């Protein structure tokens, strides 16, 4: 059922929404962690070490992936909306996803 959603542009939309939502939820946590620099620098360092744990690494990879997905997805939308209509949106959607993998992939490679 729900056959009307079964196409790349809809998935691109959902990916964009989920990544945006994920980023928005992560952002306060990110800010709080960085704020530790003022209130408790030692804790920040502790946190950053803790961040070396594989599980957390994976989570971080996820975050960068989200940012990258959302970034490329966002660029795709902005191009769609503000540049003369090209009609080649499927390639845009695919390109956005590929770019996201590229960036987050290199992040992951660097991190391990």
């Amino acid at each position: 059922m729900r056959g009307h959603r079964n196409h790349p542009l809809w998935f691109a939309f959902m990916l964009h929404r989920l990544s945006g939502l994920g980023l928005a939820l992560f952002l306060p946590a990110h800010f709080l962690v960085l704020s530790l620099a003022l209130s408790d620098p030692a804790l920040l360092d502790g946190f950053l070490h803790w961040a070396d744990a594989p599980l957390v690494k994976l989570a971080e990879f996820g975050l960068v992936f989200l940012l990258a997905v959302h970034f490329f997805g966002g660029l795709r939308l902005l191009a769609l909306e503000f540049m003369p209509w090209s009609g080649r949106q499927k390639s845009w959607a695919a390109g956005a996803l590929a770019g996201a993998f590229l960036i987050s992939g290199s992040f992951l490679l660097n991190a391990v």
Partner: protein
Amino acid sequence: MLDLRLYMLQRLSAMLMAPFVLVHLGVMIYAIQGGLSAGEILGRTRGSLPWFLFYGGFVAAASVHAAIGLRVIAAETLGLRGRALAVLTWGVGAVLLGLGMYAVFAVTVPA
């Protein structure tokens, strides 16, 4: 949910963030080599006006952008309307801006 004004705010903030995100991602990929440490981060950013402006702008744009983004999602999936929606939008914007600016100060103000 979105009229032209909110739409333009969201799109303009997104455009503003585009270079920020690129630089930020670049720095992250570069910085993460050899692991992160508080000292390293702070050493780079503390007392730097450019970094302050960079992250300050980033935070401001992200607050606006995410507030409007969450507004849309709340309206569409939770069915929020009217005042509740306005409170949420402004609330999210304010919290993000507050927390974000505090964090920016934390990492850029000279110790």
